[in-house]
């Protein structure tokens, strides 16, 4: 059969966009949003931190340069809140990481109904922080809290303790509440890391006579180091700027014993109407977190270089 001789006129094709242009077009909307909600406020905050801005003194906003930063860096209240934030950060991160590794090891063991254990473990993390904080505030209540009831019934206490009313115990109660909530987060990430380890390594080690402790120290821990460092970065950043759980449980009290740097900044800006100081505090917190993160990232890179 003869084929028709009609020939299509060749389509005039426009020159395709370079791939980078296409990628940029796709990214542009998200970049614009990020620019507006992150970059612009950050730049504005940096600008504001150089001025003495108080809402109760409208129209008078003298330029003070780094004065707001210097005021805070020489303020006893600032350093007190920084040390409280550091204490909270170190204790919660160490506890959450240690317990997280233990939980992850447990959840990694072959056992019946392992999925039930994994589901239960994740529950505290699934709770909104405000619910968790309110729940622990009730548990710690001196008069009708279940912690006092339990401890007195088992004979550990002879008298009720006002856990949230003493400067010696309030911070620890907040730490316990945070550890209860965030340990599952650490455990799940570490479990993911554990499951990426080749099981043959364990068998080979056992054949060579290694015990459980040796396997943990010589195989599991080194191979988990990258994920542990990532967990450390995430938890350190979160813990240092902790606000919600403390605000709800203690409001920063008693006697400012749980007033971390984020609560101090909030009080300065929103209760003291001092937005210049508030902006400076926001930047000081951000710088501190970036420094901590930089140390971890350096460690992470070094570990990666070592393991590769």
């Amino acid at each position: 059969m003869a084929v028709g001789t009609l020939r299509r006129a060749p389509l005039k094709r426009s020159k395709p966009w370079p791939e980078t242009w296409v990628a940029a077009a796709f990214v542009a909307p998200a970049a614009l949003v990020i620019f507006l909600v992150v970059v612009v406020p950050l730049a504005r905050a940096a600008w504001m931190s150089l001025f003495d801005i108080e809402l109760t003194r409208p129209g008078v906003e003298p330029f003070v340069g780094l004065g707001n930063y210097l005021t805070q860096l020489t303020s006893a209240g600032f350093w007190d809140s920084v040390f409280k934030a550091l204490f909270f950060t170190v204790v919660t991160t160490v506890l959450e990481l240690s317990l997280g590794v233990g939980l992850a090891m447990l959840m990694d063991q072959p056992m019946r109904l392992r999925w039930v254990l994994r589901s239960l473990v994740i529950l505290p993390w699934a709770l909104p922080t405000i619910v968790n904080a309110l729940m622990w505030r009730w548990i710690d209540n001196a008069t009708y809290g279940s912690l006092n009831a339990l401890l007195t019934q088992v004979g550990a206490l002879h008298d009720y303790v006002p856990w949230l009313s003493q400067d010696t115990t309030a911070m620890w109660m907040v730490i316990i509440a945070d550890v209860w909530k965030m340990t599952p987060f650490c455990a799940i990430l570490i479990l993911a890391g554990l499951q990426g380890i080749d099981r043959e390594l364990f068998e080979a080690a056992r054949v060579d006579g290694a015990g459980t402790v040796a396997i943990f120290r010589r195989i599991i821990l080194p191979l988990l180091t990258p994920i542990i460092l990532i967990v450390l970065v995430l938890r350190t950043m979160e813990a240092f700027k902790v606000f919600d759980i403390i605000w709800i449980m203690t409001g920063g009290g008693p006697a400012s014993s749980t007033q971390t740097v984020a609560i101090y900044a909030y009080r300065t800006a929103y209760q003291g109407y001092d937005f210049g100081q508030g902006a400076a505090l926001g930047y000081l917190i951000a710088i501190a977190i970036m420094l901590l993160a930089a140390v971890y990232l350096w460690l992470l890179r070094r570990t990666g270089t070592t393991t590769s």
Partner: protein
Amino acid sequence: MTRSVAATRGIAWRLLGTATAVLFVASACSSSSATPSPAVTQPAASQPAASQPAGASPAASAAASQAIDTTTPMTLNVLLMQQAAYSASDIKAMDDAFTKAYPNITINPELVSYDSLHDKIVTAQVGGSGKYDVVLMDTPWPAELVTANIVSDITSKVPADFTSGVFDSAWTAAKYNGKVYGVPWINDTKFFFYNTDMFAKAGIATAPKTWDEVEADAKLIKATGVKYPITASWKQAEAVICDWTQLAAAFGGSDFVDASGKALFNQGGGLAALTFMKKLIDEGLVDPASLSQTEDDVNSVMSAGQSAMALNWTYGLSVMNDPTKSKVAGKMKVAPSPGEGSVTTSGVNGGMSLAVTTTTKHPNEALAYALFLASESSQEMDVANALPMWKASFDNTNVTKGNPDLFAAAKIQFAGLVARPVVPYYTKLSNALQDAIQQTLLGKKTPQQALDDVAAQLPTFQQ
């Protein structure tokens, strides 16, 4: 008074920057669902009788309804408190009555805890969308909120019957520099509540009249086996300032600062009150858990029958005597707050007022709403949770018969309430004092040292 667009934008940017991670989406108007139909405004005289707010006094209606839009559908966003005073159901009943009178106006109330109220006003009105038309303002806040240009001057719009009929103490929560910025809505103070069973068991027949008698009675009650006879709301929050102010007034100190701005709180009554508070803690008469308690916690402890006496706002009595919530219902009584020496009683001014914001698109309707809620008949709808601020209500036996003891105590205390200072730096001062009081109660500083430290910071706050 209307905030200029430039000023609003400038302040909004500041807050935006301070938060850094928070974007407050600016909305052009206060959630108004106004249609583009032309507004029809009617003076009060021309309104049909049926559209007059039920219960609002004629004078109130007349003043408020100057150019009230009665046709265009609109929504008023209102920020109130859910803690002491009126309950959510009380407020809903008032709102329903208002919308019945003004069917084109929808009320969108938002109720937050007292401790969130101040910050919510600031964040929403200064840096956020400025969506609220009416906000509830505590006694010490007018100075701050006026200088931050958040609330409007309504001096010329206040009806005459409000000026003459409302207790003077209630106006403290509404005025600054001689001008009126709010409609008084709540007139409250802390009363002395006591458990009659525990008193009887200790052989005490009458409520104490002085704080020395409180201490003596507490010792007798403690001897009967009540571990902590007194419970208090001494959390590091405004609650502890209210209690301390009330005690300071009883011990002869009524002002925080003098006319020149010099500290007075670190001497006389203020110092004596803090010393006395610490003494009660040291003697084991006040529950140490009080340092993390607010007024709601005091109600819970009293309702559980754990303590015998406490100071609390009006609503405390109805909560403690509510059989569905309290183990000691029917056993709780009220008395005027004790005095000391030549002072027979004292009371902190816990008044609050409804302020029309500078960002509202409906200032007349917002004011009409505030006046409606504060009208005599609205206030007499439920006097169990909040006492009316109208003097006439106290002489109306139909109103007082439900709780004559409470009205009797209130009439005495309302005559001489002591206000916390209405100064632009109040929140800074309050925060510092809260910390100082707790430092003392925890034994970390002496009363004199703690208060002197705050006095030393005062010039910084005043800058």
